C-alpha cells in the first residue's frame, strides 16, 4: 500500500519521525512512483526557497479557494499509511489510484497557483482601466514629452505583464500536457477550438499593441486575452483532473466554473 500524499509531503518536508521515515524509505525502495513523487516535491521545495515573497491581491484567492474546494480530501485531511497505525488508513481502492489522487491534488493546486502568482505579479501593477486614453496622437501632442515617457513606461510594464502571462500559460499547458487524461472527444475538441479562438484574439491584440503601443484598447484587449486563456486552461486542467480521477460529477461541477475569466 502506498503512503498517501500527506505522508509523502511530510517526508519531503522532513517532518516524519524516524520510524515513519524508515517505513517510507522501505516502501520507496521498491516503488518508483512514490520516489518520483518525493523527487517532485523536493524539486518544488528547492525552487520555492528561491522565490521572491509577494503579496497576492484579494481577488486571487477566489480561484485558489475554488481549486481547493475541488479536492475534498484536502479539507478532510485524512491520512493513511500502513506503517503507522496512528495515522489511520485510507479506505479501499488501489494504491495506484491513491497516487493518482495525490498527483491530482497538487495538479489542481498548481493550476490555481498559476493564476495566484500571475495575479500577484501582474494584477496590481497593470491597472489601465481608469487611465485616460493614451493614443499615439495624444502622445505626440504639444507637451507630450511627459506623456511619451508615461507611454513608454506603460509599454515596459505591458511587456513585463505579457511575459508573466506567457509564463503562466506555459505553466498551465505544461501541467495539462503532463497529464495524459481522458476528456470526452467532443469536449476536448470544443476546448481546443476555443483556445484557438483566444489565441487568435491574443494575436490580433498583440499586433495592435506592436503597431500602436500606447493604445489602451489594444493593451487592455491583450491582457483580457491572456486572462481568458489562462482561465480556460485552468479549468481545462481541473476538468482533466476530475475526469482522470473518475469523478464525473466533480467534472460536471467544474463545468460550472468554466466561464469567462478576467473580471
Amino acid at each position, binding site marked *: 500500500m502506498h503512503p498517501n500524499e500527506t505522508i509523502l509531503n*511530510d517526508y519531503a*518536508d522532513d517532518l516524519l519521525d524516524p520510524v515513519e521515515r524508515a517505513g517510507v524509505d522501505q516502501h520507496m525502495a521498491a516503488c518508483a512512483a512514490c520516489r518520483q513523487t518525493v523527487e517532485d*516535491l523536493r524539486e*518544488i*521545495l528547492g*525552487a*520555492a526557497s*528561491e*522565490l521572491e515573497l509577494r503579496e497576492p491581491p484579494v481577488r486571487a484567492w477566489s480561484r*485558489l479557494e475554488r481549486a481547493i474546494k475541488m479536492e475534498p480530501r484536502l479539507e478532510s485531511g485524512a491520512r493513511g499509511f500502513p506503517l503507522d497505525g496512528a495515522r489511520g488508513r485510507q479506505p479501499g481502492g488501489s494504491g495506484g489510484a491513491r497516487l493518482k489522487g495525490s498527483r491530482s491534488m497538487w495538479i*489542481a*493546486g*498548481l*493550476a490555481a*497557483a*498559476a493564476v*495566484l*502568482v500571475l495575479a500577484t*505579479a501582474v494584477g496590481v501593477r497593470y491597472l489601465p482601466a481608469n487611465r485616460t486614453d493614451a493614443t499615439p496622437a495624444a502622445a505626440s501632442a504639444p507637451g507630450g514629452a511627459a506623456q511619451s515617457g508615461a507611454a513608454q513606461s506603460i509599454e515596459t510594464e505591458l*511587456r513585463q505583464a505579457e*511575459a508573466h502571462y*506567457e*509564463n*503562466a500559460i*506555459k*505553466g498551465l*499547458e505544461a501541467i*495539462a*500536457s503532463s497529464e495524459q*487524461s*481522458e476528456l*470526452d*472527444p*467532443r*469536449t*476536448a*475538441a*470544443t*476546448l481546443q*477550438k*476555443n*483556445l484557438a*479562438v*483566444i489565441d487568435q*484574439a*491574443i494575436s*490580433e491584440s498583440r499586433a495592435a499593441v506592436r503597431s500602436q503601443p500606447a493604445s*489602451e*484598447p489594444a493593451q*487592455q*484587449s491583450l491582457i483580457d486575452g491572456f486572462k481568458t486563456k489562462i482561465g*480556460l486552461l485552468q479549468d481545462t486542467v481541473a476538468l482533466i483532473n476530475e475526469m482522470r480521477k473518475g469523478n*464525473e460529477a466533480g*467534472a*460536471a461541477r467544474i*463545468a*460550472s466554473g*468554466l*466561464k*469567462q475569466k478576467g473580471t
Partner: protein
Amino acid sequence: MRVTAPIVFAGLALVAAPAAAQDHDHDQDHRIVLGDIIRTSLKPGAYQGRNNGPEQTEHFSRKVKIGRDGRFSLSNIAGDIVVTTGGGDEVSIDAVKKTRGDKSELARVQITVDDRAGRVDVRTEYDQDRRDRGSRTNHVSVDYTVTVPASVSVDLHSISGSVKATGVHGSVRADTISGNVTLTDVPKLEAAKTVSGDVLLTGITTDGDLTASSVSGSLRAKGVKARGIDLGIISGDINVSDVTCERLGVKSVSGNVEYAGTIAKSGRYEINAHSGTVRLLLTNPAGFELNANSFSGSIRSELPLTIGGDSSARSGSTVRGRRDAVNSHSMRATYGDGSATLVVRTFSGDIIIAKR
C-alpha cells in the same frame, strides 16, 4: 508543506522561467502543446451512448418523498435530463437506460438514489471499468424525466446530455459539459452553464444574481429580472431581451452581444467583447454615463449624448465632441441624468447604442 508546495511550484513556473521562455511570440508553441494535450485525450467511444446494434432499453422508476421545500440533485454522465413540476411532496424519477450494444451492458450502469430527510440525491454510476473508454458500458446512456414539487430546490449536473427544467420555483443550478441548458419559468435560477452547447433562459425572476455561460454555443435570455447578471462566452452570440438588472457583466471573445432592456438608476453595466458587435437597445433610460472604446470598431449612439459631461457638446445620431472625450474609437459621454454607468469595450467590433 502540504498545500503550499504546489502553489509555490507554480510560482516557480511563472516567476523563475528561463529568459528564453519569455519571448513574446509563443502563440504557435502554445497551440502545438495544447494540440498534443487534446490529441492524447481523444479516445474513441467515450459517452457516445450508441453502438451499431438495435437499441436496447431498461426502465427505472421510483418515487421518493422529499417534502415541499426539499432539495433534489441529479448527476448524470450520458443522457438528457428533463425536470418538470407536479403537486404533492414526492419526487418522481423515471429513467431509461439505453444502449445499442449488448443488453447486458445495461445492468452495469446503476441508478443510485440517496434518500435523506428533505433531500434526494440521484446519481448514474458505471462499473469501475467505465473509465476505460473502450469498455462496453460507455455505450450506455441514461435519460431522466423527473417531476418534483414546484418549491423544491434543484441541482442538475451532466457530462454529455442536455438539461431542461421548467416551472421549478426553488433555487436551480444546472450545468452540463456537452449539451444545451434550457430553463423556463425558474424564478430562483442561480446558474446555468455548459461547455459546448446553448443556454436558453426564459421567464426568470430572482432577487439575487444569476450566472450563465458557455464556452462554445449561444446564450439567449428573455424576460429575465435579477439583481445581477453575469454572462460569459468564448465563441458564440449573447442575446438578452426584456432584461431588468442593476448590474450586468458580459464577456465575449468571438460573437455579437445584444442587450435589450432597462437600465436602473445607479446600475452598472459592463460589456467586454473582442471581435463582436455590441448593441445596447435601452428602454426608456433615465440616464447613464458612458465609457466606450474600441481599437478598430466604431462607436455610434442614436441617443443624444453629452460628450465628456459637457452639455455644450450635445449631439444627435453620431457623437462628435471634444478630443479628450471622444475620438473615432473612444467616447466618454453622458445621457440624461447620468445615474447609471455603462462601460463598453471591444477590440474590433462596433458599439451601437439605441433607444428601444
